[in-house]
């Protein structure tokens, strides 16, 4: 009996997509004795690697070393990447992307895996986006030059920034605002961004958390980086916050966080041009702008405590206000409500194990999800990788004759994929985009990658990023006639 083919379409080209592809391609040899395998990644962005390119902070270049493994995966002849292809609808469509319907994918592939991440920022009900309030993701998109073109913040007109939430994204943004521009200039920070940062008049960054140091979402590594900044110092933390009740057993990370916070920042508070603070037990309730002085706003904060029973932040009844120039909400992320199989209650796709679940609770045959699309916006690359490997094992369990299918085993076939697709065929729209030169492939990306590094080198930095217009122009000059 001929072996069943696995022609897998992966929607999204972030780390989880690459880790799934890597696992599948390394576990199934490219040999006659194995099922024929193809893995095609589709991303709406023209460049691959998802948040590794358009999220990870520029001063964390080591984190991006994972792309060497992705390059190795992409070198497998059974792998292809197609950039500038948006599958289904997008909330904020990028003008130059091609739109491809899921049904076109179903016609051309035997299996489909969603690795679409969680692309939208969670907003605060009391703080709607405005001139004085933006989500952290806008700033991340600005400093990474994400194709959705977030405008630069007017840092030259403001002195005080309030970050709401104390997760790692919040600390990333704080570091970008507080790190000397000369340090950032060596990394992968676009010149236009350096330009804005060098004119910044920001003097203080307030990081506001509704719970305390023990519940803070940041990790010790990120906290230590902030603490060690050369030109900034931290407002000392109220000592009583750092003395947990003796009957609490602290996790290792919690005790290390407390130790770090008790020591305070490397530079004594007040000895530096810039300062920052961790303002615990404060929950925003509104933002008022005085029309006669639009440079400052008043952030109202409810004082909170942690309910020992539920671990939730509850109001103490007190409140205060904080004058600030810009509020940046950093409260996490969720998936796109218009995506198929999105569960608004969960904030991500509905899954069980790595399988997609219908509204009625049935697991769908040959349909999977991995990474943040499946788990929600939680976890660092290590956890995304583990999750992706588990998803790859689920796919392989359904395909390899010597494997047992993974749970759940009862599957419905509501969606008709193509069990015998043309292995090397691509959907018509993709073929058209390739012909026009508007769809990117991994080979294109490697040429751009090399050129970006070269351009960066010329000005003494890690890389100088291209936007799509630059990339397209550059590709026209270097694309050879051969496909792939």
């Amino acid at each position, binding site marked *: 009996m001929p072996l069943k083919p696995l022609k897998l379409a992966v929607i999204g080209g972030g780390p989880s997509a690459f880790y799934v592809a890597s696992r599948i391609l390394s576990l199934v040899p490219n040999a006659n004795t194995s099922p024929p395998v193809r893995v095609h990644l589709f991303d709406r962005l023209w460049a691959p690697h998802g948040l590794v390119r358009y999220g990870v902070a520029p001063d964390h270049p080591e984190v991006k070393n994972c792309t060497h493994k992705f390059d190795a995966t992409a070198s497998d002849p059974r792998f292809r990447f197609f950039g500038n292809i948006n599958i289904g609808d997008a909330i904020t469509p990028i003008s130059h992307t091609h739109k491809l319907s899921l049904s076109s994918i179903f016609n051309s592939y035997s299996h489909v895996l969603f690795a679409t991440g969680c692309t939208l920022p969670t907003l605060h009900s009391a703080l709607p986006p405005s001139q004085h309030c933006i989500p952290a993701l806008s700033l991340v998109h600005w400093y990474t030059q994400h194709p959705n073109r977030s405008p630069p913040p007017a840092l030259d007109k403001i002195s005080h920034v309030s970050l709401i939430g104390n997760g790692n994204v919040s600390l990333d943004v704080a570091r970008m605002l507080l790190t000397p521009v000369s340090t950032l200039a060596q990394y992968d920070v676009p010149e236009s961004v350096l330009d804005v940062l060098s004119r910044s008049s920001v003097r203080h960054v307030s990081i506001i958390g509704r719970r305390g140091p023990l519940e803070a979402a940041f990790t010790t590594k990120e906290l230590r980086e902030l603490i060690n900044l050369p030109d900034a110092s931290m407002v000392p933390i109220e000592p009583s916050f750092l003395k947990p009740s003796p009957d609490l057993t602290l996790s290792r990370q919690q005790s290390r966080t407390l130790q770090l916070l008790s020591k305070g920042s490397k530079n004594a508070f007040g000895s530096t041009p810039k300062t920052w603070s961790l303002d615990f037990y404060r929950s925003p309730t509104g933002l008022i702008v005085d029309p006669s002085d639009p440079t400052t706003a008043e952030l109202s904060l409810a004082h909170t405590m942690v309910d020992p029973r539920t671990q939730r932040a509850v109001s103490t009844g007190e409140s205060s206000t904080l004058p600030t120039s810009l509020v940046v909400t950093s409260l996490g992320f969720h998936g796109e409500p218009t995506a198929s199989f999105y569960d608004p209650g969960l904030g991500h796709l509905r899954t069980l194990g790595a399988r997609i679940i219908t509204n009625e609770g049935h697991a769908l045959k040959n349909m999977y999800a991995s990474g943040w699309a499946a788990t929600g916006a939680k976890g*660092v690359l290590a*956890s995304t990788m583990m999750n992706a490997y588990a998803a790859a094992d689920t796919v392989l369990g359904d395909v390899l004759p010597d494997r047992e299918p993974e749970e759940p085993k009862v599957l419905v076939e509501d969606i008709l994929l193509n069990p015998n697709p043309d292995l090397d065929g691509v959907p018509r729209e993709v073929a058209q985009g390739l012909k026009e030169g508007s769809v990117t492939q991994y080979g294109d990306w490697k040429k751009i990658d090399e050129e970006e590094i070269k351009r960066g080198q010329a000005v003494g930095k890690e890389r100088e990023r291209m936007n799509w217009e630059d990339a397209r122009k550059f590709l026209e000059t270097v694309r050879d006639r051969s496909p792939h």
Partner: protein
Amino acid sequence: MSNLCWRANILSRSLPNCDRQLSLIVRRRITTKSAVTQSPISLSSRPRCQSPGAKSRLAWRDWFSSSQIRAIHYSPVTRHGGIERPASGTGIKVHFKDSKGSLIKTVEASEGDDLLAIAHEYDIDLEGACEGSVACSTCHVILTPEYYDQLPEPDDDENDMLDMAFGLTDTSRLGCQVKLTKDLDGITATLPSATRNMFVDGKKPTKH
């Protein structure tokens, strides 16, 4: 200045503790391309380094053709530990075990080699997403107490990453930070269990 010398310079300016990883990369590049002649400036023994674009130092065409060759031979480049295997019987012995405690392989390596590089050299499935820069915790291994106690204490950076490791134990270390000495002959490194649904960063009581 060659690309790499530039990189060595910028790195030594920006990240003061990073010679070994860089030299590892240099060696890797030498073995694939023999393009670099100058060794990087040594600053300390602490392997803490980045190499964004290390791969891109190869021209795209070289990358592509060498990767095509790799694809045919089925040995992705990330598998190479960048170390030299000692002659059989002369090296320091390392036992790698899986999470269930079954022996995967016993291998030999030299003084100064780290467990991550050794695992890669011998095709053992230990990840090293940040390539030894203490920025990912994917190289987490569990040691036996006798050997754990012989090692210098993990420093703050390593502890920060261990905070985020899955299945952390009292004798956990980052594989990329454990360097072999003669005293460690016979050391056992157990890979942590890859349990499902471990999506958290390490701590965090239930939230809202």
